[in-house]
């Protein structure tokens, strides 16, 4: 388990296999919840994660692929699109500037 200083997060990338469905939906949800903290949220296919991502979010089953593509990036996995606790954890850490475990 590593930690990331949440105050350094400026760009969150939601990655999915194709970058056309799941990640688009989730990026839409997260961009509204993280907008007050000036954090950008973008979606992308898992094999095209942009270099300037501070944090990568993807479905649990894709975490190892995301890490293979970007070994130096923090990757958080989630299992549910609606109401996964990891989204709350992320929002709280960004709001309070705390440490985020990943």
């Amino acid at each position, binding site marked *: 388990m590593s930690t990331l200083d949440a105050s350094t997060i400026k760009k969150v990338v939601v990655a999915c*296999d194709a970058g056309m469905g*799941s990640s688009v*939906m989730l990026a*839409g949800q997260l961009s509204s919840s993280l907008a007050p903290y000036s954090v950008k949220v973008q979606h992308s296919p898992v094999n095209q994660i942009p270099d300037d991502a501070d944090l990568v979010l993807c479905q649990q*089953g894709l975490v190892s692929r995301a890490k293979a593509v970007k070994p130096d990036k923090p990757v958080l996995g989630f299992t*549910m699109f*609606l109401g996964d606790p990891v989204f709350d954890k992320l929002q709280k850490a960004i709001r309070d500037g705390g440490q985020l475990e990943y």
Partner: protein
Amino acid sequence: MSTDTLTADAIRLGATAADRAEAIEQCGRLLVDLGAVDEPYVAAMHEREQVVSTFVGEGVAIPHGTNEARKYVRRTQLAVVQFPDGVDWGAGTVHLCVAIAASGSEHVEVLAALSKVLMDSDKAAVLRSATDAATVLSLLGNDQQEAHA
């Protein structure tokens, strides 16, 4: 704003499917019939589903192809297939599929509308049990002008 990525002719209510594969097949077939994708896209939808489930919660799944299969997408198009009896999707029972064929990002607004609907369980229930295409279109924000009229 014009969003023609979801239109009434792309909405099938009252469908039945024995299992997840059959439901995805129907979604893919509809996208082919609409002229939105070439045949191989359907196989990619099955493949994508096996990588990670497209179940998003509230009885909804969003089947779509893989990144490699984008070349089979002729135009960005969404299609809705409703299964009133439900389809076992592993993580839950699906009553509504929003099938996606995307070459660009024209469909983002409809998916954003979908995600808002799903965060409101009352609206999600209305969407799942819609009995006409107009209800689906109004919830997914495709006919804003008519909704305001």
